[in-house]
C-alpha cells in the first residue's frame, strides 16, 4: 500500500494529483508516508473522519477553503532566517555590489523570492538591504515574495514568528532592531514589513508582480519538488523573469547541472547562477 497508512490507495492518488495540478509539485515516496500526519489538522478543522472522507469531500463539495487547506498541508513550508548564512554574506558584499554597478543608470533593484513560504528569507534580505542604507539612497528597491501556499503567504504578510522561528538563524542584534515582542510572538516592525510585498502565486503559471526584470532571484529548495519536465519548465519561467545580468540562488543541495541549460554557474560568485546567454558567446555567423 503506497501510503503506508490506513487510507485507500486511490485516496493517495487523488491527493497527489490535486497537489500536482495545483502546484506542479510531486510527492516523493519519502513524503507520501507523512501525508496522513500532515493532513490530520485539516481533517480536524473541517470535521472530516479520514483521508477517504477528505477525498470524497474534495471531489463532491465546492469548498475552496478545504482545497486550499489540503494543498497547503501537503507542501513543505520549512524555511528560516538567513538560511545558509554564508550565501547571504556573499550576496551582501559581492552580488549586490555587482548589481549596483550594472543597474547604476536605472537605479532600480528588483529581488524576487520564489517559494518564499512564511517570509523569513525575504525579510532577511530586506533587513540586510536596509542596513546598507546609503548604498541604496535614491534607488527603487523592491523585495517581492511569492508562494503557492495561501496559508504561508498570509503568515508572511503578518510577519509574526514564534520563539522557535525567531531564533532560527536570526542574529540577536537584528531581532531586537527589527522585531517587537508581543503576546502572540515576535512581530516584524512596520518599517520592516513595508519593505517587502507578498503574494500568492503559482510560479509555473503566474507572472510575479515585479516592476522590472528580477536582478536577484531566490528559488531555494522548491524545484526539487518538481518532476523533471516541470522542473525544466520552472527554470524556463525563472529565466523569463530574470534580467540579462542577474543572479539565481538555489538551495544548498541544488544545481543546474543536467537540469536546465537556462542558467549556468556564475563565474563571478561561487554558489550562484546566472542566465546562460550571458556566458555563452555564440560564434558570429560568417
Amino acid at each position, binding site marked *: 500500500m503506497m501510503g503506508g497508512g490506513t487510507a485507500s490507495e486511490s485516496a493517495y492518488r487523488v491527493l497527489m494529483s490535486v497537489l500536482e495540478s495545483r502546484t506542479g509539485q510531486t510527492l516523493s515516496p519519502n513524503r507520501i508516508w507523512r501525508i496522513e500526519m500532515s493532513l490530520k489538522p485539516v481533517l480536524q478543522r473541517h470535521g472530516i473522519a479520514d483521508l477517504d472522507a477528505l477525498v470524497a469531500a474534495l471531489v463532491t463539495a465546492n469548498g475552496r477553503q478545504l482545497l486550499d487547506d489540503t494543498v497547503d498541508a501537503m507542501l513543505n513550508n520549512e524555511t528560516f532566517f538567513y538560511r545558509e548564512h554564508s550565501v547571504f554574506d556573499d550576496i551582501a558584499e559581492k552580488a549586490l555590489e555587482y548589481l549596483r554597478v550594472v543597474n547604476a543608470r536605472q537605479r532600480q533593484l528588483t529581488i524576487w523570492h520564489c517559494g518564499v513560504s512564511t517570509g523569513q528569507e525575504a525579510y532577511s534580505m530586506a533587513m540586510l538591504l536596509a542596513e546598507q542604507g546609503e548604498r541604496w539612497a535614491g534607488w527603487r528597491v523592491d523585495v517581492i515574495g511569492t508562494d503557492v501556499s495561501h496559508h504561508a503567504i498570509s503568515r508572511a504578510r503578518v510577519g509574526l514568528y514564534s520563539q522557535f522561528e525567531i531564533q532560527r538563524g536570526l*542574529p*540577536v542584534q537584528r531581532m531586537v532592531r527589527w522585531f*517587537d515582542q508581543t503576546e502572540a510572538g515576535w512581530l516584524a516592525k512596520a518599517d520592516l514589513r513595508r519593505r517587502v510585498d507578498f503574494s500568492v502565486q503559482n510560479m509555473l503559471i503566474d507572472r510575479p508582480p515585479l516592476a522590472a526584470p528580477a536582478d536577484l532571484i531566490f528559488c531555494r529548495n522548491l524545484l526539487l519538488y518538481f518532476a523533471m519536465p516541470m522542473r525544466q519548465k520552472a527554470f524556463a519561467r525563472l529565466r523569463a523573469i530574470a534580467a540579462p545580468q542577474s543572479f539565481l540562488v538555489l538551495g544548498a543541495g541544488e544545481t543546474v547541472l543536467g537540469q536546465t541549460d537556462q542558467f549556468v554557474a556564475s563565474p563571478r560568485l561561487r554558489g550562484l547562477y546566472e542566465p546562460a546567454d550571458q556566458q555563452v558567446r555564440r560564434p558570429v555567423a560568417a
Partner: protein
Amino acid sequence: MSKSCLVVDDSKVIRKVARHILESMAFAVDEAADGQEALRFCRANRPDVILLDWNMPVMSGMEFLGAFNDLDFGHDERPRVVFCTTENSIDHIRAAIEAGADEYVMKPFDRETLEGKLQLVGVA
C-alpha cells in the same frame, strides 16, 4: 583542531545536556557551576565560546560578564559569549547584549538551535 566551549550553568542537568550536544559537534567541553568558577577558568584558559546561564547563585551571568569584559586575552580574540535564558523578554535580551553577550539561546534548546547560534558567532 577542535573548538572549545565552557558551559556555565548551576543546573547539572543543563550542563549535561549541553555537553552531550557540544561533544556531538566535536567541541572540547569544560564546565563551571557559577560565574565565579567560570571567571577562574577564563583567567587560565581561553575557550572559543562560553555558553552562559543568566540566573546562578554566587555570581550571576550578568556579574560574570562585568568581570569577564576586563579580562585580558592578549593577542587572542575574546571568547564569544552565548547566553542562555528561560526569560523570554526583549528587555532582558537587550540587557545581556549591552553587557557584552554576542548571542542568546532560549532554554531548553536542541542541537539544531544551539548549532545555529554557534554558527552566528562564528565558532561552528
